[in-house]
């Protein structure tokens, strides 16, 4: 199936509107870019758009009520809200170390959710 997508390039502030025509997983045509720098970005955006995901997870007994987290790799764009939904159901006990794995294979993406800060436990 032939599809056309208009991608706004983010490589520089000119923001070229690059028209990408794809046939299944093949690039048919690329048009509208003033330079070559954005080509790779446009192709990825057309075939398999992904985004780094950052959010936070609830913490029990921590110095803070939340710990900030990120996806270990960029998440397919169409799975962002599914991943967020799964993250919202989790509550983790302090102490938490930066880099600690919080969720394994989130929403069956093979991607993990990892803490980006340390949260100490509070003594009651």
């Amino acid at each position, binding site marked *: 199936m032939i599809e056309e997508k208009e991608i*706004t390039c*983010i490589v*520089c*502030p*000119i*923001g070229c509107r690059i028209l990408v025509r794809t046939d299944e997983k093949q690039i048919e045509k690329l048009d509208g870019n003033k330079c070559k720098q954005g080509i790779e970005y446009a192709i990825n955006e057309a075939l398999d758009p992904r*985004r*780094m995901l*950052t*959010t*936070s997870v*609830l913490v029990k007994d921590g110095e*803070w*009520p*939340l710990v*900030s987290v*990120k996806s270990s790799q960029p998440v397919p*764009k169409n799975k962002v809200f599914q991943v*967020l939904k799964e993250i919202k159901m989790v509550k983790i006990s302090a102490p938490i170390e*930066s880099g600690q794995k919080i969720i394994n294979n989130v929403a069956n993406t093979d991607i993990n959710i990892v803490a*980006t*800060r*340390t949260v100490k436990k509070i003594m009651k």
Partner: protein
Amino acid sequence: MINRQVDVAVIGGGPAGLSAAISAKEHGANSVVILDRNSWPGGILPQCIHDGFGVEETGESMTGPEYATKYIEMAKQENVEIMIQTMVLQFDEKQNIIAVNKNGIHTIKAKAIVLAMGCREKTRWHAMIPGDRLSGIFTAGVAQSFINLYNIMPGKNVVILGSGDVGLIMARRLRFEGANVLGVVEILPYASGLPRNVVQCLKDYDIPLFFNHTVTSIAGRERLERVKIAQVDENMVPISETEQELKCDTLLLSLGLIPENELSKNANIEIDEITGGPVVDQNFETNLGGVFACGNCLQVYDTVDMLSLDAKRVGKNAAKYTDDQKQKENGIRLLSGEGVRYVVPQRINEYGKMQLTLRADKPKDVSTLYVLFGAKEILKKRLPWVNPAIMIKIDVDISSKVLESGQSLEVKIK
């Protein structure tokens, strides 16, 4: 009263203060202390949980908290002392600092001072939005700290005024937390935030961006219930026929940042009206010898990368000053001409190679940047595009002849 002496005292422990302190240590300062009023080091970074920090500097994209941790660890390794929950009340031209914390009042005599107080956000009063005084109006950064640090949602139906990066990032953050973002309203015909954020925070989630629009009224009883927005004409005056009402309980303001310089003003440091930060020379030294400025209290940087790199140079210069307290000449001025909003440094008092950072006044295609000495071009550089959201960095070589002339230099973009 607790008295002490240090080589370099740094006011503010955000990325600028941390970088400067680490670098001062690396360049031979014996004792370096950071004073910060927050109960954590790292400044604004712990609430900036999104990624994109450090790309230019290290090639690696980190989140704000990760970036802060990296610098805090380096500071510890260099034996930089960090005093948190310590508020600086004043300093003077003799490098005496007065600060307060729960142990009492501290007087600190430093050989050099580095200003790294960061900035604060513009409020409703800067945009002069008429209407009721009610709850539900927040600056974007405050909403960010509520959501990301304290787990408090500011509201459900949100309008954002101003397309600065903080506002764009908050649009996406609010969507992630289940709020309905009705749109971002921008008075200019272009976004003031980075293109990446326009795409990845708004377009990705179909959040409308209203260019040439502003908020014309705010209404509700105790809590915000609705705002009116309207298109503006070329003189930025709202066109009443275009007015529309948006039902919302929350208005976030992302109107820009103002360098935090109350302390500097009280110490009689000369402030640049455009940048809002101290007037500095090529070494980032203010008009008070031995007092240097860096980070967002000097000028509002686009990204933390450039900010940290400059702050490192500031730390080095402060360390150098501690063993060579040379009084400098006033030097010559560097003026912003046509097409240029501002240039830092504003003064030059040494000849040789140096870096200038500047901003254009509006977006343009292919342009030429000139550094002029009278009618003579000291530097001419073609730029493929210019955008006020993206700072321009250029290297120039200033000769002793230019310096000795006493004449100002001018920077232009045509």
